[in-house]
């Protein structure tokens, strides 16, 4: 599996901190920790998705609009890396 650059992971963490409405500090979350367990609601995941698209200048295609993609900072970072690779 391709290693996601730390810069991407940290940028995702910043977006999550600002838009996911977590009940805990995003800075304390492990990369693999469940954002849903940390308090992200289904609608908050919409805000996270749109903010990620702005931050990384990507668009999540329909096939990536699934719960597991937005499950954790790691899974989101992996999806961003995949979209970047496909755009290259």
């Amino acid at each position, binding site marked *: 599996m391709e290693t996601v650059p730390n810069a991407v992971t940290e940028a995702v963490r910043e977006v999550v901190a600002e838009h996911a409405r977590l009940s805990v500090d995003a800075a304390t979350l492990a990369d693999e920790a469940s954002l849903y367990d940390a308090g992200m609601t289904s609608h908050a995941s919409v805000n996270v998705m749109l903010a990620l698209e702005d931050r990384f200048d990507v668009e999540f295609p329909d096939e990536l*609009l699934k719960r597991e993609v937005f499950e954790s900072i790691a899974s989101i970072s992996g999806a961003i890396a995949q979209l970047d690779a496909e755009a290259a």
Partner: protein
Amino acid sequence: MGGVPLRVGTDLVLATSVRESLATHGERYLERVYTSGEVADCRRGGEVDALALAARFAAKEAAMKALRVGGAAVPWTAIEVRRSADGHPELSLHGRAAELAEAAGIGELAVSLTHEEPYASAVVVAEIAPHQERVGGRR
């Protein structure tokens, strides 16, 4: 003999979260999440009613639970809530959502919306068509 097998889903949405989306992402948010018909149903005096949108988002999430989408990719616009001629909300499924419903043997779906600032909620009940599924074996 048992009754008709049913599935149910429910969801609760904060209108504040919808207002944040509208303020930050505007039309992009509307286009990604709602159909043009849903947005039209939520317009009040030229502006989009965030509480009404929140109820429709709750209905979409409730429908996904009733459909048991699990890990499947289902765009929010694949589930549509429209107001019927007599004023009742009606649910329509498109694309991937319709495929999942058919695979599960789901026939009729019913939806009910409610809202009181700052919350909106919805319940969706899905009927498994006869002879498509047994619940807990023979009764």
